[in-house]
């Protein structure tokens, strides 16, 4: 395959989290009983008219700004005509010639250019497998708002396509405009795939792959399709321009019935809908409400907080986690005696990426198990040396079920360790005085014997002394000239 370059463009459909539908005031909520969220507009009843939902425009602008797109001051809703039982009007309201966003990009390590982002409405659902002799229609989804994101053919591998999609998912979740759930269909993706001999060669004939409803499927389907096209090319054949369906059971792409492929959508501007207007003021107002986006956050975590790139990546993956981390860090920095920002950030990061993420994974629906303020108290305790690394884990578990600050709970459960010199120095002196032979061995070069002394001192505190501090004090005493 090395001799061919893969060229991929994606069309991503993202369902928006609005209360009502794109063009009618019935509920857009997912999961209702079939045909319980249908008003006469969604049903395409005679005489009904669409009226655009303001929030759909706001969401489109949010995504447009987040992807560095040009926001059209005026854009046009158009009708796209095709017949299908779950499309009640015989056309879908979409955008054609004048979309709301153009010319943006998304960085996935490389810059992937976006052709456009446009507003459209979803269709209903056809159920073909419930009844052998008929198809059943649930029209609840009719009119639910979508944004379609179309990329330039800039993606070069199945892996990149998947990365791009994940990036889009992260972005729409950050922006609060979609849950980005591929399995439930709120994020959908079609891929246009072609191959060419050299990277400067003109684009080859593309096929369009549909029906990929997970990131894995996207990768698998594209890999399969690329291999298929290479096979065809190597055998001296040419790829036919057609629509392929991904079959996740058989793990292969196969062509859709070619009969329905001759599309002539007869787009024209919808006479029922005046142009969409986004004034510079409205645009600025929306911009002011945008959250800090994952890329910017990532950069800030590395440069300002001194976190490793890996930590920054994990922490910024989901906005709630990043927000939580920052709340912990802020609370920690506000505590007395907190060390510098970098040290605090790392301490907070360790706890969030370790204990907190583990707890979240175990019980995803429960939310953050410990408040940011309390987690900061735990980080603070740990940094002061008053608790051991194993003690931290135990204490975190206790904090999930008990009230109080980290210190209060640690005291209740005897988890604090002694790291106070005033308490440690007399015991260190006692241990050295009681073991003159071992002191002699140390001073004559057998440095490893310090472990013996540490054990003795720890024993004196029943294990609750800070071993790091004990080592420091012992070294200091042993390395000083004999009295």
């Amino acid at each position, binding site marked *: 395959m090395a001799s061919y370059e893969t060229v991929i463009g994606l069309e991503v459909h993202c369902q928006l989290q609005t209360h009502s539908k794109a063009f009618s005031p019935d509920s857009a909520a997912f999961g209702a009983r079939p045909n319980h969220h249908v008003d*006469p507009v969604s*049903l*395409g*009843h*005679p*005489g*009904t*008219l*669409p*009226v*655009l939902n303001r929030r759909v425009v706001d969401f489109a602008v949010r995504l447009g700004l987040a992807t560095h797109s040009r926001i059209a001051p005026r854009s046009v809703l158009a*009708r796209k*005509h095709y*017949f*299908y*039982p779950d499309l*009640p*009007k*015989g*056309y879908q309201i979409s955008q054609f010639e004048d979309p709301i966003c153009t010319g943006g990009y998304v960085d996935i390590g490389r810059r992937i250019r976006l052709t456009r982002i446009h507003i459209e409405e979803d269709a209903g659902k056809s159920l073909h497998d419930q009844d052998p*002799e008929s198809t059943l*229609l649930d*029209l609840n989804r009719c009119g639910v708002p979508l944004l379609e994101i179309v990329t330039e053919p800039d993606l070069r591998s199945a892996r990149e396509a998947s990365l791009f999609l994940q990036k889009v998912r992260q972005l729409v979740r950050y922006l609060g405009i979609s849950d980005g759930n591929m399995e439930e269909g709120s994020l959908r993706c079609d891929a246009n795939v072609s191959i060419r001999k050299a990277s400067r060669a003109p684009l080859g004939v593309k096929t369009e792959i549909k029906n990929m409803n997970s990131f894995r499927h996207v990768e698998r389907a594209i890999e399969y399709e690329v291999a298929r096209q290479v096979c065809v090319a190597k055998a001296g054949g040419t790829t036919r321009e057609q629509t392929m369906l991904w079959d996740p059971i058989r793990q292969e792409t196969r062509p859709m019935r070619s*009969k*329905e492929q001759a599309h*002539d959508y*007869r*787009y*024209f501007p919808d*006479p*029922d*809908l*005046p142009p969409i207007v986004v004034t510079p003021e409205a645009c600025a107002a929306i911009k002011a409400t945008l959250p800090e986006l994952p890329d910017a956050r990532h950069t800030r975590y590395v440069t300002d907080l001194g976190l490793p790139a890996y930590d920054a990546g994990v922490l910024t993956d989901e906005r709630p986690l990043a927000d939580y981390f920052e709340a912990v860090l802020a609370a920690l920095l506000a505590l007395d005696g907190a060390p510098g920002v970098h040290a605090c950030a790392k301490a907070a990061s360790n706890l969030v990426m370790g204990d907190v993420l583990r707890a979240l994974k175990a019980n995803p629906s429960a939310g953050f198990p410990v408040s940011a303020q309390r987690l900061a108290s735990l980080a603070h305790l740990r940094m002061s040396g008053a608790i051991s690394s194993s003690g931290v884990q135990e204490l975190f578990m206790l904090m999930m079920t008990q009230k109080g600050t980290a210190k209060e709970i640690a005291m209740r459960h005897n988890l604090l360790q002694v790291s106070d010199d005033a308490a440690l120095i007399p015991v260190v002196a006692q241990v050295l005085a009681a073991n003159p032979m071992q002191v002699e061995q140390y001073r004559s070069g057998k440095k490893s014997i310090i472990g013996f002394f540490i054990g003795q001192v720890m024993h004196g505190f029943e294990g609750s002394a800070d071993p790091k501090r004990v080592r420091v004090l012992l070294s200091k005493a042993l390395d000083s000239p004999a009295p």
Partner: protein
Amino acid sequence: MRWATFGSTRAALARGETTCEAVTTTFLRAIARKRHLNIYTYVDAEGALRTAREQDRQLATGEAPPLAGLVLAVKDVLCIRNWPVTCASRMLDGFNAVYDATAVARLRRQGAILIGRTNCDEFAMGSSNENSCYGPVLNPRNEIYAPGGSSGGSAAAVAAGLCHAALGTDTGGSIRQPAALCGVVGLKPTYGRVSRYGLVAFASSFDCIGPLTNSVEDAALILAAMAGVDERDATSAPVPVAPEPVGLTDAARCAGAALRVGVPKEFFGEGLDSTIRCSIEAILHRLRAAGAVVKDVAMPHTRYGIATYYILATAEASSNLGRYDGLRYGYRPAPDGRKRIDLHALYAQARSEGFGKEVKRRIMLGTYVLSSGYYDAYYAKAQRVRALIREDFDKAFQEVDALVTPVTPVPGIKLGSMINSPLKMYLSDIYTVTANLAGVPGLVIPIGAHASGLPIGLQLLGRPFDETHLFRLGELMMQLAKD
């Protein structure tokens, strides 16, 4: 009929000379007597009488709504909750509306008594009311003639004294032309003046709901009751409705005489019936004598009106009628025994059997002009010419307050005479379509009669949202016509 107009009925009700119930009963009897005219497709005698009795009680206590006693028929293309709406098409056989059209709801709230639905051309497509699954309507003035179309039933109902007023719809002249041919008053309001919500769409950027009445005053009252912005129609205009001149006083008529009136020579060219021409010239003479300024104006793009209109209107119609497929409502052919049917065949069978000939012809034309490769040559071109036609009006209205024109080139349409010559039928709309292309209001008034008994109508066209001037001028000219 003693109280043919609502204005006179209202006065009689106020004097206690009649009751709403008596008026309604009179109309119901007339409907029964004139059944052979084939005007009504549905009569709700019980509902109308119930409302009438309720209003009589309200009149007694002084709580009656302002239009109490207005017996109103509604063209069979407007939705009325729990009433059938068929658009005179087999396609909507058995369909009952689940909501009220906004215009109907507003009139109902103000006291209109809904008596029934009137026959029309299928989906409002036609100029003779012969394209109806119920068969043609006979012109009450001369029964071997058609009443005109598409609101033929509404015009005939008013002319035959089967209601005070009827609602019609006007996409290319469908209120004005039958009003002229039946000798009643017909108003096509400014596009956007009356909400289209609940009007079964033919061509969305042209469709208007308006009244057909026996007096200008009734038309003004009904317009005021149903006009105004509607959150269900994004193309309804937020333009305040001028308070209608109650009783169209002498002062109003005087104001009418102070107007400047334009006569576009393009509307008086070859092909215009000479009696119609003479009648209009005679009345213009009297208008001049009454003090109005009458002057020639140029409307150079009038001759392109028919081509422009039929491109745009059929394109929009082909889209609007895509929803009729017999899947979710409406006509579904009997199963042909096959368990699985090709999707295309399923649609094609329902639509070919459900739609009549003219509707199918227009869907074909509209689909053609929108199809790949033809859009620019036809649709986009016509949209540009539409702008030029609008410009003609804007320029004319800089010089004059209203235009006076004929309504139809021919004195009447004999039943069966045009049904097989679609282009000839289309060309007869020459004087009405430009108002729809430009979105301006048009008022038709009766000004005389041919020897055949067929009436002669005159059309007044006004500035957008300036129906008030049309009412004043119309009232004045009707007076002048009688003198």
